[in-house]
């Protein structure tokens, strides 16, 4: 397909997308949206603005007088953070963590959805099994993986002993070891992400019609080629819906880290979210914690916005 016809198609689809025969109704839709909007402004919008103000002050909870704004010291919290080695480490850890978990969660879910689309025996039981991680609160996910990876009574070391791979309990200290601590957190997080991603990708795969593949089969395309050139591109809107939903909830990983390692050992698994808690709640430095919150909010919103834009684009091209 040449670029011109592609663009024309896109344009046609775009105008259809905008004029989906929605009705013009004057003030009515605003009246329907406003209660929701007011709640969000009260609970999210206004507090965030307040937190922006606090981030420009040296506020500490135990020193009520420290909540005062002076222009000269306004940016001091941000300067402190930029010079704080642990801030940079927690930012770096968060980036590594997100890069690995988002990509691996997506790749594994894609593979699993292609596998499930071919299953002929017990589809509905398998789907229920697939959804079991959705029954776990994030804090519970962290709790159970902390237990499974416990060096002395944990399920994982028990299995390794029973298989004869290690000799005694405590031989692998999963949560205390430096790379292993991060890896166990990633495993827990990926386990939690898989169900929603997989059910959306599976629904997308099952919605593709058999005719789509007929021409490719006549041409003798291999299974991988069919996936690479037909299934995968056609699943784009589904992929972005799944990734957008995952990005909205990505900070749930905080719960897991908090309960599994709480940033340890020696701050090796410290992430932005846990460091905020440490600064603001444990050290009562609300000004500094708010400054860091704002950095996190901006990063989170950009992250979600990226997937959301991709979603809208993929939907229009479709």
């Amino acid at each position, binding site marked *: 397909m040449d670029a011109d016809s592609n663009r024309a198609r896109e344009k046609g689809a775009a105008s259809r997308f905008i004029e*989906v025969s*929605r*009705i*013009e*109704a004057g003030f009515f*839709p605003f009246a*329907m949206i406003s209660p*929701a*909007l007011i*709640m969000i402004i*009260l*609970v*999210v919008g206004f*507090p*965030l603005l307040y*937190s922006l103000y606090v981030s420009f002050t040296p506020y500490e909870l135990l020193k009520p007088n420290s909540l005062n704004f002076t222009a000269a010291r306004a940016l001091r919290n941000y300067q402190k953070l930029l010079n704080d080695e642990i801030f940079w480490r927690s930012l770096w850890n968060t980036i590594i963590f997100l890069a690995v978990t988002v990509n691996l969660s997506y790749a594994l879910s894609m593979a699993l959805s292609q*596998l499930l*689309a*071919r299953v*002929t025996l017990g589809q509905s039981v*398998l789907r229920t*099994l*697939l959804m*079991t991680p*959705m*029954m*776990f*609160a994030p*804090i*519970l996910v962290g*709790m159970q993986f*902390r*237990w*499974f990876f416990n060096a002395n*009574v944990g*399920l994982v070391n028990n299995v390794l002993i*029973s298989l004869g791979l290690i000799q005694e309990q405590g031989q692998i200290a999963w949560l205390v070891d430096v790379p292993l601590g991060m890896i166990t957190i990633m495993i827990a997080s990926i*386990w939690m992400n898989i169900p929603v991603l997989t*059910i*959306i990708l599976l629904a*997308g795969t099952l*919605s593709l019609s058999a005719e789509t593949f007929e021409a490719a089969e006549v041409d003798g395309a291999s299974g991988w080629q069919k996936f690479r050139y037909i299934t995968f591109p056609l699943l784009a*809107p*589904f992929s972005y*819906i799944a990734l957008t939903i995952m990005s909205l909830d990505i*900070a749930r990983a*905080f719960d897991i880290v*908090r309960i599994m390692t709480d940033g340890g050992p020696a701050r090796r698994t410290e992430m932005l*979210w846990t460091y*905020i808690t440490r600064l*603001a709640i444990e050290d009562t430095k609300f000004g500094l*914690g*708010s400054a860091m*919150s704002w950095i*996190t*909010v901006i990063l*989170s*919103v950009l992250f979600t916005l990226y997937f*959301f834009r991709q979603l809208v684009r993929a939907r*229009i091209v479709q």
Partner: protein
Amino acid sequence: MITRSVGPNRRRNDFLWNAVAWALLLLLALPAFWIILTAFRPNVEINTFPPVWIPRRLTLEAYANMFGLNPEVRQRVAVEAYLRNSLVASGVSTAVAVSLGTLAGYAFARFRFRFHTPLFLGIMLSRAVPGVALSLPLFLLFNRVGLVNNVLGLAFVYVAVNIPFTAWLMDGFFRQIPKELTESAYIDGCGHWSAFWRIELPLSLPGLATAAIFAFLAAWNEYQVVSVLARNNAAKTFPPGLFAFTEQFTVDWRGMAAMSVIMMAPAVIFVILVQRNLVSGLTFGAVKG
């Protein structure tokens, strides 16, 4: 559906796909089974070495201890308080969030108006704000109005947190209702409100149930905000309650498993109920803009 090659190869492949899928999914579901099993095992079997894989005896001891039926156990967990707070915060916030989110979702699905896309995007992005970041200013502001350590204050927060996803799901469900129905309602003289209230809302009840369940679970499982806003058992819900387990010197793994099972119960019921609706609500936007 995906077409398969025909012949003996096909049969062998089918068997292979099925076997691999079953093995992987059993592994994925293993933690849930293990937690449930642990809740009903005697403590000696859990902490013993070498490990006992197949339980020899099942018992309700963990629950007896939890609800104070065992006089030997002094230190109790305040399960009743957690349960009450979790039910109030999740129940109240779900009812309000679903009402408000449904109204907004309908407006986005049916009407053309200025700022349609920015408003939708703004509402969705409010959901991307991490709970940790939100909890700090909420603590300071709630402190001034006396809402810290208050279950209803918590419910208030959860309403706003749950509106975006509800609006998204309901937008998807309303767009699945054929346009002709709305049009005929207008021809019969319905106004915008009665078309919504009398025609479209009843048709979207399955979607509404799905959205409600999602909102309920999000509130039920929330940890970041409640861990800052709840100071004691007057407002603590299950997640901070469970966290308290880990702060003890020796963790009571069985007690934790027993509490986890109670905490998972609504999710188990809901996931089985909404399975199908959820997928259609989430993916509708993917195929029809």
